[in-house]
């Protein structure tokens, strides 16, 4: 099976290279059959990489430890679902998975758009396959997942070797969220290749109107949604698995996923200005190029080891490949952009600083500033080491100080944007629109302050959340009321129909509301408290309104791990509300035992009680418990669900009015008549 996988990878490389060459040559020679052949080769790449990944999955399932990657990331007693998720548990497999998803996207894009956009599609195919060729080259020559397990001995060639068992999957990855989080994240990263490919095709063909944006709008939203979900699931995993009580630590890996998300979010907003006003065409090109580059850069950042040390980059087997590809892709795209500048002139002009257009520009500015702050903070240790020769650390305190004010300003703009009219907002409309939300938000601020919310940023974040919520509710209310008066529908029907008639706008508002919920959840982190104690059976400890009592201490032994566990009764104001089962597991695979925490969480809308079994005392009679009281955390996850709902609404096609349907069918009939007469 490994040979089939290896052969599929080699074939994929040849077919992908052929697809790029055939597409470009076909365009140059205006040779339709060559272009079609390039397209078929792209579909062939999908078949080849699918074969390779199925082979890898099979090798994991049967625990074939003659393959180095399998031996390093699996063991016999690993449950089957973790064996499958081990495919993306290490560098070789995760890059293969990245490459495979790219071929899935490519195949879908080709099948959906080949007839509709016949001029652009050969270029789209060439760009997607060029990206695929880069990954296939790495699979084959740098990080091949089908390499054999060998023993290296001095003065002899490597000797093939089959270990009795594998080293096991990293225990931190043996978690349900880790099964789903990487695929979501990669679907997001890879998805941004589609708008990039269409943008490049639009520039090559000089078809620089709205077509490429309208064609890729849904693809971009889908990629953005997956990336958002991937990031949130990563947070959920960290919260459940790492046992430090939080869900976001500004780790370089987290930052790598946040950067393309921030630019992608800016792009999703600024395309609306291009669609509605024919403006910001160059800017949108810059954003789509940066989103794509950041997606690749994020993978480079986490996989090359460059953030640990500038020297790790040179030692990494993939650092050079990524750096070369990034330079070629960025310089190629920017050259094309400069060459096409005369075709990217704005169709309209900005009329006022106080307008919807300029609010989008400020929104873009703030999102890019946030991205730059994350990029700068993540790369500053590397810069410091390269310039001054001094290694430093840039961690959560830096990112929080820099990004929290930027994020709150962004929240403010989220509320302001919908209140401003396109072109120019008059003073009267400003007063009318801002007065009520502003006064209510400030009143909420006073109440919050008096009730003890005196952490400045948390207070400001909650005030802004209130402001944005009121503006969103007001938008729905205004629209639904007008509709209700006009059509006689009841209010709920009017809200539903209003949303279905302009899914993108109202879906967008739902997504904005999701961010309100996320901000509420994040604000709660300012009020986290924790405590720890050594507790024997029957002992208690208190944290805020809760009391925890250790009822039982025990052990468990499974083939995969052994564990110390406690049964802890949780009492709220003296009344029992839950039994919690925190664990300390020690995984057996590998040469050294690998301990991890399995935290127990009691979650309500008001707060989480988060219990970590930090270990047992040396006599084994007491458990060392660390307990966190995390206010409002549940709203982060609810916000994630609302975000998905909002994006799905925005992805729906608009429901047409009967008049518009009639108009469309009439114009179709007219078109048919003209075609009949012409023929």
């Amino acid at each position: 099976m490994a040979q089939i996988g290896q052969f599929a990878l080699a074939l994929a490389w040849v077919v992908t290279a052929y697809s790029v060459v055939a597409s470009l040559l076909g365009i140059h020679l205006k040779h339709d059959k060559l272009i079609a052949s390039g397209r078929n080769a792209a579909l062939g790449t999908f078949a080849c990489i699918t074969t390779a990944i199925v082979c890898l999955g099979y090798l994991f399932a049967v625990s074939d430890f003659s393959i180095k990657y399998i031996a390093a990331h699996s063991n016999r007693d690993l449950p089957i679902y973790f064996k499958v998720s081990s495919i993306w548990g290490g560098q070789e497999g995760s890059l293969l998975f990245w490459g495979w998803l790219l071929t899935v996207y490519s195949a879908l894009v080709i099948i959906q758009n080949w007839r509709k956009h016949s001029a652009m599609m050969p270029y789209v195919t060439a760009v997607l396959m060029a990206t695929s060729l880069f990954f296939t080259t790495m699979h084959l020559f740098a990080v091949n997942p089908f390499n054999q397990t060998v023993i290296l001995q001095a003065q002899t060639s490597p000797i093939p070797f089959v270990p009795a068992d594998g080293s096991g999957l990293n225990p931190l990855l043996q978690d349900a969220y880790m099964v789903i989080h990487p695929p979501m994240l990669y679907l997001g990263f890879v998805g941004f290749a589609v708008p990039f490919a269409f943008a490049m095709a639009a520039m090559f063909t000089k078809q620089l109107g709205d077509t490429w944006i309208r064609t890729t709008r849904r693809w971009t939203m889908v990629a953005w949604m997956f990336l958002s979900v991937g990031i949130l699931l990563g947070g959920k995993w960290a919260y459940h698995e790492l046992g430090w009580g939080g869900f976001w630590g500004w780790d370089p890996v987290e930052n790598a996923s946040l950067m393309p998300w921030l630019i992608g979010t800016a792009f999703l907003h600024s395309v609306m200005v291009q669609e509605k006003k024919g403006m910001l065409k160059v800017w949108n090109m810059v954003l789509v190029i940066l989103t794509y580059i950041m997606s690749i850069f994020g993978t480079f950042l986490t996989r090359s080891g460059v953030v640990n040390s500038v020297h790790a980059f040179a030692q990494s087997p993939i650092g050079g490949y990524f750096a070369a590809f990034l330079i070629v892709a960025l310089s190629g795209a920017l050259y094309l952009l400069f060459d096409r500048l005369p075709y990217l002139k704005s169709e309209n002009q900005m009329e006022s600083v106080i307008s919807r257009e300029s609010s989008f520009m400020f929104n873009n500015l703030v999102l890019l500033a946030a991205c730059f702050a994350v990029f700068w903070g993540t790369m500053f240790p590397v810069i410091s080491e390269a310039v001054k020769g001094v290694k430093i650390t840039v961690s959560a305190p830096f990112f929080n100080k820099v990004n929290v004010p930027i994020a709150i300003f962004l929240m403010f703009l989220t509320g302001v944007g919908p209140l401003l009219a396109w072109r120019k907002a008059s003073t009267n409309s400003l007063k009318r629109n801002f007065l009520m939300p502003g006064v209510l938000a400030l009143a909420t601020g006073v109440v919050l302050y008096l009730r003890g919310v005196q952490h400045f940023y948390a207070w400001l974040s909650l005030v802004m959340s209130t402001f944005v919520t009121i503006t969103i509710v007001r938008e729905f209310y205004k629209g639904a009321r007008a509709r209700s008066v006009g059509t006689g529908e009841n209010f709920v029907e009017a809200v539903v129909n209003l949303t279905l008639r302009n899914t993108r706008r109202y879906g967008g508002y739902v997504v904005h509301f999701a961010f309100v919920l996320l901000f509420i959840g994040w604000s709660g982190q300012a009020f986290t408290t924790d405590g720890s104690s050594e507790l024997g059976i029957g002992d208690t400890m208190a944290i805020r309104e809760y009391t925890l009592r250790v009822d039982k201490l025990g052990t468990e032994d499974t083939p995969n791990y052994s564990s110390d566990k406690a049964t802890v009764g949780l009492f709220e104001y003296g009344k029992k509300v839950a039994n919690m089962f925190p664990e300390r597991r020690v995984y057996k695979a590998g040469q050294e035992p690998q301990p991890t925490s399995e935290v127990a969480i009691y979650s309500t809308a008001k707060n989480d009680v988060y219990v970590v079994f930090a270990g047992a005392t040396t006599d084994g009679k007491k458990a060392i418990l660390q307990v966190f009281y995390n206010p409002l955390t549940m709203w982060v996850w609810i916000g994630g669900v609302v975000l998905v709902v909002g994006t799905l609404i925005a992805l729906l096609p608009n429901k047409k009015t009967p008049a518009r349907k009639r108009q469309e069918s009439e114009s179709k009939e007219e078109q048919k008549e003209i075609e009949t007469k012409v023929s």
Partner: protein
Amino acid sequence: MLVTTPLALAADRSDRIRELSPNFICICGCNQLLSACNHFHCPSSGPMLADLGNQIDQGKSDNAIMAYFVEKYGTTVLAAPPASGFNLAAWIMPFAALGIGALMVLFFVRRFRSRWAGVPVDGDLTKYQQKVEEELEKFTPED
């Protein structure tokens, strides 16, 4: 007073540990803040927290404790770069970029506005614009 003073001191000590520990990275290799590193049998976080407590007991200022930690564990022990010398760039650049970006947006908008202002405007246009705005306010958005 005699009874409460030691308790108040103990509370003050633990408050300072709580405040200061997020400024340091645990050196065990987990890359977590000293306040957050709680992994099993961590060889570093316990001694580092004890060290921090000792420094507080000696009555040292926050800056003096930070200097002591840098001297003992190296510059990588600080969770954020100090805002001085070359490291000042880390703190300034994001806000400088935001400021420069804001100026560029304003410049962009004003440049187009001034071009637009050069176009002769019909005297009645403002009146009609106001009317359009009023109509748009009542409009059911279904575009």
